[in-house]
């Protein structure tokens, strides 16, 4: 079959690779109808996630049709149109049973790598390095889906592919940030990053009753999109002092909940970027936590900070003093998608959550390398490139 593969740092190519097979009785094979770029793929592309092999198929946010099922699959049948969670969950370990699906204890068959890196095993993720299980990704014609009874959700008839696609990752990730960040009616919420996940977090905060939601980015088209489609206020961080602006807009308190949706390649107009980039290049830190630092400083005393952006290793100049003395709650997680996807599909079907606008560019799988170039370099206002392998 045809697939978009990682070949090295900043090098992607479309290759012929072996078709996936049923390897476990609870597996299914899904024919991919749509699959999209995600900001976290850029960390793989940039070489920040080390356990990649040349030839690995990338992609983890997708929707497709079940074409083959293993003998123990109970909840899905051939022909089902499903959105598949990017996180693979077994559904029966303690963490899955407690709705913490990205901490699944059985879905990563190569657990020693994350165990050594982080002191604990995390779930398998499609197309996200051998540290996360080495599963082939969704930028392909077909993909093997382990534990499909727990990882895939049938798309309601009234919801088209493009609207349902982002229920695979961006929408549940954003929803989780607002939910586990503790957004309550009347809150003021700030969201760093107006990419797909940031926009979904902002929308989730509004739907959970936040009084004001303020999203921060530097790309005018993303800021405009967030105002228009999400209904949030925005701040262009290249034009103003973000912390001062947030103080002014919140009566001097700071936001009640701060959601970081940027990740390890954060930018800054100030000297922080030069400092962090130099340390990253020298291997003295793996991640640039610029937005996390700002969120911690901006947050009101006693408030909550949720880290949605992907981080891989160690950071420098982490404001632990501010965190402790301001009495903040800091949380983070890869998405617990299975917990939210049914509810999100319902909201999408009712028109309360709109996602299709994120797909600024739709193209064939052959155009994958160009799609990632546009996505990475924000060319032509690209927010998400969506690939249709069978177009």
């Amino acid at each position: 079959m045809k697939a978009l593969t990682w070949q090295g740092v900043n090098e992607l190519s479309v290759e012929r690779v072996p078709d996936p097979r049923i390897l476990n009785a609870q597996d299914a094979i899904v024919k991919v109808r749509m699959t999209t770029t995600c900001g976290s793929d850029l960390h793989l592309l940039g070489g920040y996630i080390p356990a990649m092999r040349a030839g690995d198929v990338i992609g983890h946010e997708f929707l497709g049709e079940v074409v083959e099922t293993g003998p123990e699959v109970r909840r899905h049948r051939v022909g089902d149109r499903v959105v598949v969670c990017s996180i693979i969950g077994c559904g029966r370990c303690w963490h899955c049973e407690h709705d913490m699906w990205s901490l699944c204890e059985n879905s990563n068959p190569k657990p020693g790598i994350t165990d050594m890196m982080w002191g604990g095993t995390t779930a398998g993720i499609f197309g996200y390095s051998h540290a996360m299980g080495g599963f082939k990704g969704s930028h392909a014609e077909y993909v093997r889906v382990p534990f499909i009874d727990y990882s895939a959700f049938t798309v309601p008839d009234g919801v088209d592919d493009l609207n349902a696609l982002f229920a695979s990752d961006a929408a549940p990730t954003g929803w989780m940030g607002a939910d586990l960040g503790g957004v309550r009616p009347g809150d003021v919420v700030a969201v760093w990053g107006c990419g797909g996940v940031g926009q979904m977090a902002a929308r989730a905060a509004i739907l959970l009753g936040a009084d004001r939601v303020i999203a921060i980015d530097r790309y005018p088209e993303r800021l405009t999109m967030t105002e228009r489609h999400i209904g949030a206020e925005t701040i262009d961080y290249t034009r103003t002092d973000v912390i001062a602006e947030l103080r002014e807009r919140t009566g001097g308190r700071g936001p009640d909940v701060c959601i970081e949706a940027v990740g390890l390649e954060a930018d800054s107009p100030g000297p922080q970027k030069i400092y962090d980039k130099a340390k990253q290049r020298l291997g003295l830190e793996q991640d640039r936590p610029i937005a996390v630092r700002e969120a911690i400083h901006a947050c009101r005393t006693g408030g909550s900070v949720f880290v949605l952006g992907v981080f891989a290793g160690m950071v420098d100049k982490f404001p632990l003093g501010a965190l402790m003395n301001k009495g903040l709650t800091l949380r983070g997680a890869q998405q617990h998608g299975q917990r939210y996807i049914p509810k999100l599909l319902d909201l999408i079907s009712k028109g309360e959550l709109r996602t299709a606008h994120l797909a600024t560019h739709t193209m064939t799988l052959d155009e994958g390398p160009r799609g990632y170039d546009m996505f990475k370099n924000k060319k032509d206002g690209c927010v998400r490139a969506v690939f249709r392998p069978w177009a």
Partner: protein
Amino acid sequence: MKRAVLGAMMLGGIGLGVMRWLNSRQTKARAEREASRWLMVTINRRPDEVVPDGRLPEPLARLGETIEVQVREAPGDRGTELGARPVTPVPTGVEEVMARLAGEDPRQAVRTALRESKCLIETGEVLRPDEPPTTRPTPTGRLVDLASQRAGGEGRL
């Protein structure tokens, strides 16, 4: 030339230092404690489901007389704590490093068996990674391969 000799002497010095540290009484005592440590997993099932009628789950049973096993109820309704460790002496110091790289440390087989037992009991199957792992062999890819091959037997257990 002088620089090369100086470099070689420094490397030799560091090597000797590491060897002395590995062979020190304190390091050896610590390694002995580590060698007898139980490797544990918690399984989200009752003890009678983990070892019905005292029968060990198949991946652990395969290791036969080479291991000893303990089973106890986990606190807080967490299921069962299942532990195992090799009965034969395990390598320590430099030997341990070499054995782990070669995949011959007996604790690696125990960790793999514990993880497989947990997956089997909780889900009914042992999840297999995708095959083939990739389509293009490269030198850095071989390192990732090595880490992947050892991953089931390494880690925090």
